[in-house]
């Protein structure tokens, strides 16, 4: 019997991820590691990691990592790519990092159209700090700083990042995906592979938003959290390709 599915050869076999049960970060790390292995680009890949839960993955993927200040991965990735065109540069960021404190860096990196891949994990809250309201928190969704639920008049509407980025001229590939079931995880992996391949082909900026569960802060078990993606989160944040001008 042969192994037909297992750890990509370069993921750590001793650490395990530091994520909560069911968390989508681990899945996306794994998919990313698989893509890097399949494209044989491990030696030239640099991951620009953020602050927040997403930053926990640095060691686990066993890829060269730059630990960026909160929100700045877009700026760091832009500059690293501009000066190291042969490297594969990935900015991996959560929603607090990318859409709140890093909004300026995010939009300017996208607008410059630098040949990088941004992987944006949207779990509708600030996970690591304990479930505060994020720019992506749904209307009505309770968070520790919106205890009565996000209110349109008081807090404004959720930022739809994939839609926003797709409106800019420079980005070449923008899509929103999910990893709460295998079918969606397979699509997410294909999108990540497409983004990295575009980098290798010097085709330009790709933005891959991934809806992820946050069972701990959503106060739901992992299976109910997965249902919540299908039944609620993806209604505000529809899955699909928003731009593809490859």
């Amino acid at each position, binding site marked *: 019997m042969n*192994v037909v599915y*297992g*750890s990509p050869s370069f993921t750590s076999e001793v650490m395990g991820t530091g994520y909560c*049960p*069911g968390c989508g970060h681990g899945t996306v790390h794994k998919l990313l590691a698989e893509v890097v292995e399949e494209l044989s680009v491990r030696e030239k890949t640099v991951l620009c990691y953020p602050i927040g839960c997403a930053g926990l993955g640095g060691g686990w993927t066993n890829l060269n990592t730059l630990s960026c200040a909160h929100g700045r991965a877009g700026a760091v990735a832009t500059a690293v790519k501009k000066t190291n065109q042969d490297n594969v540069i990935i900015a991996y960021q959560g929603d607090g990092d990318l859409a709140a404190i890093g909004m300026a860096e995010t939009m300017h990196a996208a607008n410059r159209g630098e040949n990088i891949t941004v992987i944006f994990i949207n779990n509708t809250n600030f996970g690591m700090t304990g479930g505060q309201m994020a720019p992506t928190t749904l209307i009505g969704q309770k968070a520790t700083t919106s205890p009565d639920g996000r209110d349109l008049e008081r807090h404004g509407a959720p930022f739809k990042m994939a839609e926003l980025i797709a409106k800019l001229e420079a980005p070449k590939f923008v899509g929103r995906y999910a*990893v709460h079931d*295998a079918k969606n995880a397979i699509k997410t992996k294909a999108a990540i592979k497409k983004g990295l391949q575009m980098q290798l082909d010097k085709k330009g900026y790709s933005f891959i938003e991934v809806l992820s569960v946050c069972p701990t802060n959503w106060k739901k078990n*992992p*299976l109910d959290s997965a249902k919540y993606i299908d039944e609620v989160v993806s209604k505000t944040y529809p899955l699909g390709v928003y731009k593809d001008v490859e």
Partner: protein
Amino acid sequence: MPKIEVDKEFCKSCGLCTVQCPKKIIKIGNVVNSKGYNIAEQTDESQCTGCKLCAIVCPDMAIVVYK
């Protein structure tokens, strides 16, 4: 015959694999790992098709699939 192996220490008992399995032959069992999680197990190896869906959805790379 295809089968899966669950890494005891990596499994966090999230259960995503249990709903993903088309044959419904994975469940959260009674074995508890060092972190206190009841780990997933395959109940009827003979029905496993090696489809990999359980392993693909696993956030913790805890499942290895053999075929």
